[in-house]
C-alpha cells in the first residue's frame, strides 16, 4: 500500500480505495466500523479520531489524489520504554531473582495491572516439581518438603534442578525446539545427545556451536542429527538456524524480500551460503550409513533460480546479516562471562582431543570380501585431507565461523531468543510472541527484564540451570491466578504483563508421567497372577511349504508383516515404547518403532518386501492363520513417556495432548482441549489402572486402617494438598470404606481439571 499503484491495486478480497466512491472503498468501510467489530482498522493502537476519519472520507471522495513519486513507509511501532538496569552484578541466584522482580515491578508501574499474591507452599511444590522434573510430587517428596523449614522453596529449586529427571523433562523442551524426530536419520542419536548435554551441564553456547558445525555420522557424532534433520539443505538450515537460535524469521525472505520486516532476499542467501558446501552422503550399500561432509563447491548461487539463467548465477560469499553489539567498554556481564569461561577451560585439562586419522578410518565399516565401494573410497580420500587436530568431524570451516558468530556474547539475539522460550515455558507467556519472531515490527514488552535475564544467562557462561533457578526463585514465577470474576480485559492485561499467572496445562508427557506416579504404575502394584486375563489372538504360522503368489494372495502376505508387539485391544495408543539413550549411540535402529508407524509406511515396506521376496524366488512361504487363547497376566506397568520415540504416532495419547509433529518450522505445542483428550482420559487404560488400588500400594493398607487418613493421602498423592472439609465429607460417601470407592475417588481426582492444570 506504499506506492500509488499498489494502493489502487487493492488486496486479495477487496479494493482498498475506489477514487471518488467512499462506499466501495474497503479502507473507509473499515475505519468506520466500531472498535468491537471484526475487521476494524486500525487494529492496533488508538482508533482514528472523527476528524481524521472525515479527512480520509473527503480525500477519497475528492478522487484520492496522490502526488507523483510519493512512497509511504511503514512507521515502526515505538521502541518499548526501558527502565534502568541494576548497576552491580548479583552475588547469588536469589539476589538475581530479587533484582528481576524489582525491574519487572518498575516496568509495570502505572500500567494498572493487578498483581496477585504468591502461591502457598503446597501449590509451589506442585508447580515447580511439574515444571522442573515433569511430574507431580510423590508422597515422600511432599513429606520431605513439609519437613524443611523456612527455606523450603529455595531448597526445593536446588534439589529439583539437580535431579536426573530434570534432564529428561528439559530434553522434551529441546526436542520441541530443535524439531527432533525419531524416524529421521540421526533423530534418536540427536535426542540422546541432547539428553546427555543437559545431564552433563554443557553450556548452551557450546551445545549450539556443536550442532551448527557438526559433521560426520550420527552414530559417532550425534550432533550431526541437527544437520541431517533438514537433509543438509542450505536454505532449510539457514531458515531453521536463524529462527531457532536467534528468534528471527529471516526464512520468510527465502523467496522474496521479507514482507513484514527489513530483511532482503539477498540477506537470506548470504546466510544460507554458510551451509552452502555441506553435503549429505549415503553409502550405496543397503543399510549403509548416512553422513555429512563438506564439498568443494558453493551450492548457494545468486540471483535466485527464478530470476536468472543458470550461467548467470554466481556463488554467494557467506556474510552474517545480523549486527553484533559494539561497546567502547566491555559490559560487566561479558567480563563475567569471560572469567567463567577462562576458569572452565583451565579446569578441562590440555588433553589431546584429537581423534586420530586411524580412528576415523576404523569407524568406517570395512568392505571385507566385497568390491570396494566408490563412495567409501571418496570418503576416505576426503578424510585424509582433513585437519587432524581438533574434532575431525567439525570439518566445515564455514559452519564453524557461523557457529562462532551466532553464539558470540555480543550477539543480542542469541541469548534473548533462548531466554524468551524458557521464560514462556515457565511463566506462560513470552516477552515476544510468537516466541521465535523478534522483529522491530513485532511488539516486545518488558525489554529491561528480558535484557537483565539475558545478561545474567550470558554471565553465568550460558548455564541452563542458572537461568532456570533465577526465574523460579523470583516472585514472578510464584504468582497465583486471578479470581474467576475478573473482567476479561483486566485478566488479559495482567497475565500478559506477568503480574498474574495464566492457566497452564501440563505437557502431554508430563500428564502421562503424572498419572503413572499418581497411580503407582512405575512398578507392579499387584502381585503375580492378580490380573490374569484370557486373551485370544490370531497368529500366522509358517507351514514350511511354498506357493506361487497370485494377485489376490499378495494382500494376505502384506498383512502378515504387521508387528506382533501390539496389545491388539486398541489401548496401544497409550503405550510407551522405551528407547534406551545409552545404547542408542552404539547400536542399531529400534525395530519396534516400525510397528507404530502409520499404516501407509507399514504397507509400503511390506509390499516392498513381498515384491523383493517374490522377485528373488517367485514363490512365497505359505502361512496358516490360527487363533490361540492364552492366559496373560495383564499386570499394569508404564514407563516414562519422556523416554519414548518422539514424536509419538499420530493418534497416541501424547499427540492428542499437543505434542507437535515437528515437521514444520515455527510449530509450537497446541494447548487446546479436545474431545479426544477427554475420551482418552475418561476411558483410557492408564487412568483406569492408576485409579485401581493395588494391593502392594501403601494406600491399600491405609484404607483398611483409617478411611479419613486414606482420603487425605489420596488427595496429597494426586493433588498435592489436603481436602477441604466439604470435599472430605463428599469423599467419605464416595469411598465408603471400599477400595472400589477409593478407586472411584482417585479416578475423579485424576480426571479433574485441577489435576492437569498447574496451580
Amino acid at each position: 500500500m506504499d506506492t500509488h499503484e499498489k494502493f489502487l491495486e487493492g488486496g486479495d478480497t477487496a479494493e482498498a480505495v475506489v477514487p471518488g466512491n467512499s462506499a466501495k472503498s474497503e479502507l473507509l468501510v473499515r475505519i468506520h466500523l466500531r472498535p468491537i467489530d471484526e475487521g476494524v482498522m486500525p487494529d492496533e493502537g488508538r482508533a482514528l479520531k472523527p476528524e481524521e476519519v472525515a479527512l480520509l472520507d473527503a480525500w477519497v471522495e475528492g478522487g484520492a489524489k496522490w502526488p507523483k513519486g510519493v512512497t509511504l513507509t511503514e512507521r515502526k511501532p515505538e521502541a518499548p520504554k526501558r527502565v534502568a538496569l541494576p548497576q552491580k552484578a548479583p552475588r547469588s541466584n536469589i539476589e538475581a531473582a530479587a533484582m528481576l522482580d524489582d525491574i519487572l515491578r518498575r516496568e509495570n508501574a502505572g500500567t494498572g495491572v493487578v498483581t496477585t499474591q504468591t502461591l502457598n507452599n503446597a501449590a509451589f511444590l506442585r508447580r515447580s516439581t511439574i515444571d522442573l522434573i515433569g511430574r507431580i510430587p510423590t508422597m515422600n517428596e511432599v513429606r520431605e518438603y513439609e519437613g524443611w523449614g523456612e527455606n523450603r522453596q529455595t531448597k526445593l529449586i536446588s534439589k529439583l534442578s539437580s535431579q536426573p529427571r530434570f534432564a529428561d523433562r528439559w530434553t522434551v523442551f529441546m526436542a520441541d525446539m530443535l524439531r527432533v524426530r525419531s524416524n529421521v536419520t540421526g533423530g534418536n542419536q540427536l535426542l540422546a545427545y541432547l539428553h546427555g548435554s543437559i545431564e552433563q551441564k554443557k553450556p548452551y553456547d557450546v551445545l549450539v556451536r556443536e550442532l551448527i558445525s557438526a559433521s560426520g555420522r550420527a552414530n559417532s557424532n550425534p550432533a550431526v542429527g541437527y544437520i541431517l534433520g533438514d537433509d543438509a539443505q542450505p536454505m532449510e538450515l539457514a531458515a531453521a538456524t536463524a529462527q531457532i537460535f536467534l528468534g528471527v524469521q529471516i526464512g520468510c525472505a527465502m523467496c522474496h524480500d521479507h514482507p513484514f520486516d527489513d530483511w532482503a532476499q539477498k540477506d537470506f542467501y548470504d546466510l544460507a551460503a554458510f551451509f552452502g558446501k555441506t553435503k549429505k552422503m549415503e553409502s550405496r550399500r543397503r543399510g549403509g550409513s548416512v553422513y555429512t561432509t563438506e564439498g568443494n563447491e558453493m551450492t548457494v548461487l545468486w540471483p535466485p533460480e527464478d530470476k536468472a539463467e543458470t550461467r548467470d548465477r554466481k556463488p554467494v560469499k557467506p556474510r552474517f546479516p545480523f549486527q553484533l553489539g559494539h561497546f567502547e567498554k566491555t559490559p560487566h556481564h561479558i567480563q563475567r562471562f569471560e572469567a567463567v569461561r577462562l576458569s572452565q577451560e583451565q579446569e578441562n585439562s590440555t588433553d589431546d582431543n584429537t581423534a586420530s586419522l586411524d580412528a576415523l578410518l576404523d569407524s568406517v565399516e570395512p568392505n571385507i570380501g566385497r568390491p570396494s565401494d566408490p563412495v567409501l573410497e571418496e570418503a576416505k580420500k576426503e578424510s585424509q585431507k582433513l585437519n587432524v587436530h581438533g574434532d575431525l568431524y567439525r570439518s566445515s570451516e564455514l559452519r564453524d565461523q557461523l557457529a562462532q558468530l551466532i553464539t558470540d556474547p555480543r550477539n543480542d539475539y542469541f541469548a534473548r531468543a533462548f531466554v524468551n522460550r524458557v521464560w514462556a515455558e515457565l511463566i506462560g507467556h513470552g516477552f515476544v510472541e510468537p516466541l521465535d519472531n523478534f522483529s522491530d515490527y513485532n511488539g516486545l514488552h518488558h525489554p529491561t527484564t528480558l535484557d537483565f535475564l539475558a545478561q545474567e544467562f550470558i554471565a553465568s557462561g550460558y548455564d541452563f540451570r542458572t537461568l532456570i533457578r533465577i526465574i523460579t526463585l523470583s516472585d514472578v514465577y510464584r504468582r497465583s491466578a486471578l479470581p474467576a470474576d475478573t473482567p476479561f480485559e483486566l485478566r488479559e492485561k495482567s497475565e500478559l504483563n506477568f503480574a498474574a499467572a495464566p492457566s497452564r496445562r501440563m505437557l502431554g508427557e508430563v500428564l502421562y508421567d503424572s498419572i503413572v506416579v499418581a497411580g503407582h504404575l512405575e512398578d507392579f502394584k499387584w502381585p503375580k497372577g492378580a490380573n490374569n486375563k484370557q486373551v485370544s489372538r490370531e497368529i500366522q504360522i509358517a507351514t514350511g511349504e511354498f506357493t506361487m503368489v497370485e494377485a489376490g494372495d499378495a494382500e494376505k502376505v502384506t498383512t502378515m508383516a504387521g508387528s506382533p508387539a501390539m496389545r491388539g485391544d486398541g489401548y496401544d495408543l497409550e503405550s510407551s515404547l522405551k528407547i534406551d539413550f545409552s545404547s542408542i549411540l552404539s547400536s542399531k535402529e529400534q525395530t519396534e518403532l516400525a510397528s507404530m508407524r502409520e499404516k501407509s509406511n507399514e504397507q509400503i515396506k511390506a509390499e516392498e518386501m513381498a515384491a523383493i521376496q517374490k522377485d528373488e524366488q517367485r514363490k512365497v512361504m505359505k502361512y496358516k492363520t490360527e487363533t490361540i487363547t492364552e492366559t496373560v497376566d495383564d499386570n499394569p506397568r508404564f514407563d516414562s513417556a519422556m523416554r519414548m520415540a518422539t514424536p509419538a504416532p499420530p493418534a497416541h495419547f501424547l499427540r492428542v495432548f499437543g505434542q507437535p509433529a515437528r515437521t514444520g518450522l515455527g510449530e509450537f505445542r497446541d494447548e487446546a482441549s479436545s474431545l479426544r483428550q477427554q475420551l482418552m482420559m475418561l476411558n483410557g487404560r492408564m487412568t483406569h489402572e492408576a485409579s485401581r488400588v493395588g494391593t502392594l500400594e501403601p494406600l491399600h493398607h491405609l484404607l483398611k486402617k483409617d478411611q479419613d487418613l486414606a482420603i487425605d493421602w489420596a488427595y496429597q498423592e494426586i493433588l498435592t494438598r489436603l481436602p477441604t472439609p466439604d470435599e472430605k465429607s463428599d469423599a467419605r460417601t464416595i469411598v465408603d470404606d471400599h477400595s472400589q470407592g477409593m478407586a472411584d475417588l482417585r479416578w475423579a481426582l485424576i480426571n479433574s481439571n485441577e489435576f492437569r492444570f498447574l496451580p
Partner: protein
Amino acid sequence: MSCNDYQINRRRILKTFSASLLGMPISQLLAQTTPNRAQAEHVILFWNSGGMSHLDTWDPKPGRKVQGEFNPIKTSVDGMEISEIFPQLAKQMHHGALIRSIAGTNGDHGRAQYELQTGFNQSPNIMHPGLGSLVVHEREPLGDLPALVSISGQPARAGYLGQQCEAYFVGRPGQKDPYLAFPEGISHARGMQRLQILEKMNARTSGEKGSKELKASQTALKDAVNLMESPALKAFELEDEDPKTVAKYGDTEFGRGALLARRLVEKGVRFVQVNRGGFDNHGNIFDAMRNHGAAMDPAIASLLSDLKANGMLSKTLVVVLSEFGRTPRINDGGGRDHWARCFSAMMAGGGIKGGSIVGASDEDGMAPAERPVKVSDLHATMCHALGIKQDKELFTPQGRPMRVVPKGATPIHELFA
C-alpha cells in the same frame, strides 16, 4: 510462494479479536456462509498415499509403449475407459467424473501431500488446515458424532484451526474403539456415577478460577460424555451390518473403511477420510496395482451404488485423490517413479455431473494436453460443491488473515450441471 495467501497490505494482529466472545472465536460466530447452489453436505475422501499411477487407473494409454500390463475397459459412460483393475467401478462411472489434466508442481512426497491435502504449498511458520478440518470448520456439525473422522490413517492436521478441528481417528474400521466406552470392569452405572463425581469436583475448581482454558476443558468433557451416550455411536460398529454387505465391499480393511464411511455420513458425519498407502511403487507396480484394484474396486463401486440407492449420492461428494501420478515410462524395476507434471483424480456425487471428463493428457500421459487444472483448483471445486466461499477469510490464533484456497484457484465449473 504462499506468502501471497494473506493480504500483503497490512499485517493485522487482532490482539483483542484473537480473544473470544462466549468462548467461541469471533470469526466462527460471524461465519455466515451463503451457499452458492451448493449441494454437497458430506465428503468422503479416499486418500491414496504414495502417488497413485494415473496410467494404470484413470487414464489408460492403450497401444503406447507406456501402456503397461493393463488394458482399458469400457465403462457405463460412452467414450470413457478406465483401467481393467476396476471392473465393478467401471459400471458406476456414470456417477463419477474424471479429471485427467492436473498439473502439479511437487514431486516430493512431503511437499506434495501437504499441497494436495491443504491446497497450499508448505511455508515456514504457518500450518494450513487439511481439507477435512477446513470443511468441518465452515459447516456446522450435524448430529452427535464427531464432524471429521479419519479411518486407517491420519489426515493433514487442523493447523491454525486448532484442536477442535482435528480428526477423530479410527484405526481399525469396524472394530470397537475402547475409548468410547467405560473400561472393562466398570459397569455402566458405576461409570455414570464416576462422571457425576467428576462434574462436582470440576464445578468447584472452575467456579474458583474461571479462565477460558478451564471452560474449554469443561466443554470438551461435556462433548465427550454426550458422544459416549449417543446412540449414533452404533455407526462405528459393523457387527449389525448384513454380512453380505460386508462381503460386497470386500472383507479388507479398505472395504470395511468404505462401508464405515457410508454409515458415518448416513449418521451425519460431515467429512470422512479413508486412508490407504502402498502406492509408491518404484518397482513391481503391476502386481501392486492388481492388489490395489482388488481392494478398491468392490469398495468404491459398492459405496457409489449404495449412496445412490439410499438417496445420499447427490449430497455426498466422493473424491479419490493422491499426491501425484507416476512416470509413464516404466523403469528397470518394473515400476514407475514420481510424476507430478500430469496426473488424475476422480470425483463423484455432491452435485458433480456424472460421466464428465475434464481435461486430457497427451498421448503418453506425460503432460496436460487440454484444460490443465491446478491442484488448488481441485480444492476450489470441492469448496464450491460444499458452499464454502473461497474468498472467505480465516484467522490464525495470532490474528493473521488466511485465505480458504490460494489466490487464483478456480472451481472447475464444467463439473457442475
